[in-house]
């Protein structure tokens, strides 16, 4: 595994305008950020732009990291918001609702339900639109407004879908426990 200076050390060096530390930070994080962003947006050019924006932002404000939590989480927070703001200027780009071939095989379903319990199955039964909202708001921690921009739907729809999805999950879980 890659051993070397920690991300914190690298970021401190970036604040001192160390280009090679910046390069290392990029190599360490650009890959998984790209993978995760392409799960949110199908347009690879947009994702590439968002990654560029993210690292430019890191270079300009390396002290934006307040030292709490993981640098990876901080980077992701920047990256998803850069993607949202790139999406805002572009129309007609589909955000990912459904992964290709997302229907898990039967044995995976069983494994999932063992690993995640009822919540996994409940989530799997949500419609793609509702899952996209859950993913954006609950898992990515975006605001309703940001999620609306990411998914190209009105803010009110995000709120409605989130509300319905929660109600749905609550119902399914209650059903399962009774």
């Amino acid at each position, binding site marked *: *595994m*890659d051993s070397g200076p920690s*991300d914190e050390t690298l970021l401190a060096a970036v604040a001192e305008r160390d*280009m090679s530390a910046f*390069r290392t930070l*990029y190599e*360490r*994080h*650009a*890959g*998984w950020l*790209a*993978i*995760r962003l*392409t*799960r949110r947006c199908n347009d*690879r050019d947009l*994702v*590439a732009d968002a*990654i*560029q924006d993210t*690292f*430019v932002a890191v*270079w*300009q404000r390396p002290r934006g990291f307040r030292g709490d939590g*993981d640098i*990876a*989480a901080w980077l*992701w927070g920047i990256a998803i918001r850069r993607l949202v703001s790139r999406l805002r200027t572009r129309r007609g780009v589909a955000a990912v609702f459904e*992964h*290709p*071939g*997302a229907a*898990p095989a039967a044995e*995976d379903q069983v494994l*999932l339900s063992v*690993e*995640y319990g009822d*919540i*996994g199955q409940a*989530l*799997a039964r949500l419609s793609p639109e509702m*899952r996209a909202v*859950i*993913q954006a708001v609950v*898992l990515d921690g975006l605001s309703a407004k940001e999620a609306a921009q990411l998914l190209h739907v009105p803010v009110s729809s995000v709120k409605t879908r989130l509300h319905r999805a929660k109600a749905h999950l609550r119902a399914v879980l209650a059903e399962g426990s009774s």
Partner: protein
Amino acid sequence: MTGWHLDDDVLRRYVERTDSLTEGASAEQHLLSCEPCRARVNAAAGVIELSVIDLAAVWDRTRDAIEVARPSVFERLLRGAGLPAHEARLVAVASAFRGVWLTGAAAVLAFAALAAAMGHARGLWLFLAVAPVVPCLVVASSYDPWMDPALEPELVTPYPALRLILLRTIAVLALALPAVLLFGLVVPGETAFAWLLPAVGFVAVVLAASTWVSPLRAAIAVSCAWLALVSLLATRPGSPDAIIQGRAQTGFLVLAAASFGIFLLRRRQLRQLRPWR
């Protein structure tokens, strides 16, 4: 960091995007805090070549973006006005737009307007003499090769010199005319608009004359002629306003139109711009 890591199947499904929402969410949560697993995702993405994104190219663009100096306020304004980035750079690089020049020109105008506003009889003449020639001096310095060393390489490139000069002129006028107008409002007894036509006319004359001589020489000649005319009129009785009133305005309009026509007709001569010495 715990001893728990993504197993290879989960990792593969994550990178290939064949996982479910819950499994993906779980993987993502783990990845945020697990450096070894992130490295494995990076590696897997490279092997599977699912990541069509050319990260090396993105790195090059990122490095370029941070190494290029931030554009000046003026350049960003031009880009905000809809000018493409490379043209905004060409226009803004003119030495006339370096703050010193603009401040100097504004200070001269302000001084003249102040003198006029104080009600001093000579003050109004001073403003009358200075205000209309400031824009044409700034325009001339915006594309004179002697003032602007950056211009020479620009003129040997295929970029049309005419377009460059017009863009710069428009940019200068957009900055200078409101200033002339503003100071004109301070001057008593005269509508502010009266100063505009002479100013525009002189700019057009400088553009036309610069197809024969260097722009700066043209601007200096125009300024001298104007100063001579104003000082001649100043020795006579009557209001200084006369020179910018009524029929004189029509004259300036004709001067502007005719000069601009000549400039367009002779635009090919612009490539022969040479330092004035």
